[in-house]
């Protein structure tokens, strides 16, 4: 970088600083309430499939997130803003990405991690770099890999903590390790093994439609994200039919939940329109890479976290450039 471009970089820096972090014209509580409403179908579906365990998991996660948030704000002497609903959204999203059989102790631990490390140490809402629910899940995944990859067959969990629940691999794992396809109908309605909120595609689509109509969600990220996954998995499917059809890849795993409700988080995704396209494309590419060549069957969580990490760089690249800026 020459001295000249460095100077321009300085200008760009100043330009970003002038409008710090006002990313959504809508008030936080209003949007959060909208997101909570949009997640009702998915939550209801999870309670239908996994019964009281799902309900307990959701309650624990939401209550823990809100409690820890209030405690943190009290200790850091910040205004207490649990009422804005953002902690509740984090709690609900965290519950929806956890396996149904997870003991509640781990759920509470994850919730504490989401709020403390994922959000409050960055300065609270609006400053966090990573999606708090996903970073907490990544933490749990790294801490308790066995528990976070033990999935239950729907309807088999009758009593909390009972041992008669039947464990089953997720459709993506069945495909990757056993080359065993899952009927698309099951994927669409959600009668498969997986985390609480990811199994029922129908419920997720209904919720997302609500957010879109209300104008709470930018369509660019989901469209580019899902589009890239669809196109690339179709291409790969043509050469390697064992990899799963494009529809299978769209409906299985956490892709819909991630693309519709997590990647679209305005705080952790780019502010510019071009940036959002880039975010979606990058996340889609990463999902395809991890699902096809990585060690893990699913890559949605990591794809979004990695794109969260480069979001500041994307913002920097796609900000309108001042006069004469080098490309």
């Amino acid at each position: 970088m020459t001295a000249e471009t460095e100077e321009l970089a300085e200008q760009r820096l100043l330009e970003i600083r002038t409008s710090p972090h006002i990313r959504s014209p809508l008030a936080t509580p209003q949007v959060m309430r909208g997101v909570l409403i949009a997640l009702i179908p998915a939550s209801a579906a999870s309670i239908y499939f996994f019964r009281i365990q799902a309900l307990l998991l959701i309650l624990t996660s939401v209550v823990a997130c809100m409690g820890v948030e209030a405690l943190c704000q009290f200790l850091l002497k910040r205004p207490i803003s649990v009422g804005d609903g953002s902690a509740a959204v984090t709690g609900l999203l965290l519950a929806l990405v956890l396996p149904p059989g997870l003991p509640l102790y781990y759920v509470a631990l994850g919730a504490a991690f989401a709020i403390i490390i994922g959000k409050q140490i960055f300065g609270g809402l609006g400053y966090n770099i990573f999606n708090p629910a996903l970073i907490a899940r990544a933490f749990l995944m790294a801490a308790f890999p066995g528990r976070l990859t033990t999935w239950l067959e729907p309807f088999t969990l009758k009593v909390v903590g009972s041992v008669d629940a039947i464990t089953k691999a997720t459709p993506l794992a069945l495909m990757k390790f056993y080359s065993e396809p899952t009927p698309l109908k099951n994927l669409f309605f959600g009668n498969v093994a997986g985390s609480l909120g990811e199994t029922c595609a129908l419920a997720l689509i209904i919720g997302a439609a609500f957010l879109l109509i209300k104008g709470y969600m930018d369509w660019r990220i989901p469209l580019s994200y899902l589009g890239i996954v669809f196109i690339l998995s179709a291409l790969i499917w043509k050469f390697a039919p064992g990899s799963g059809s494009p529809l299978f890849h769209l409906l299985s795993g956490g892709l819909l939940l991630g693309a519709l409700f997590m990647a679209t988080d305005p705080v952790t995704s780019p502010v510019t329109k071009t940036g959002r396209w880039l975010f979606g494309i990058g996340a889609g590419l990463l999902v395809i890479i991890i699902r096809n060549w990585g060690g893990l069957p699913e890559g949605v969580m990591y794809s979004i976290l990695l794109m969260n990490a480069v979001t500041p760089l994307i913002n920097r690249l796609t900000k309108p450039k001042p006069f004469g800026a080098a490309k």
Partner: protein
Amino acid sequence: MKRNPGIIVDFTKGLWQDNPVFRQLLGMCPTLAVTGKALQGLTMGLAVTFVLVSTGIVISLIRKIVPRQVRIATFTVTIATFVTLADRFLAARFPAMSAALGPYVPLIVVNCIILGRQEAFTSKNPLLPSLFDAFGMSVGFTWALVVLGCIRELLAYGSIFGQSVLGTSFEPWVVMALPPGAFITLGLLIGLMNVIQKKKEARGKE
């Protein structure tokens, strides 16, 4: 007798207010890499102690005859020599520990604590203060590594120095043995040390 308080300060400053890890942020690579278990942290601490003290003695003795132009080269060769001695000794006598520490023992060569101390202190001071300074920094470095190692080992394996503490019902947090656990624990510890230091300063002012 008049010098003694100075010497004591040379020693104690490394323990807390100039602690190489928590305050000066030096030698981060081994601090993060080998503290998955407390014993590994202790061994690394002792290896650094050996190198720091030995190079301290040599450099403080020869500092007057070394021409300025080749100062850094002299320091580097001296350090690399003692590091090799420490590394080969570990490999010969404690092969399992040597394998666990891997390339992080030879990496002491580029540990900023060593070269930094020789540059900043030993090359300007006589033998005795240099020795106290080197010991102080080493003990400060070692206790930091052991603390980090204890916390990580406790959560990642439920034990401290290989002794089971939390019992069999405790489910280990695998992440604490992995890089993310290292980074996050050290980050939080540095924050904690800052809080303690601030409290101390506030009390000192009153």
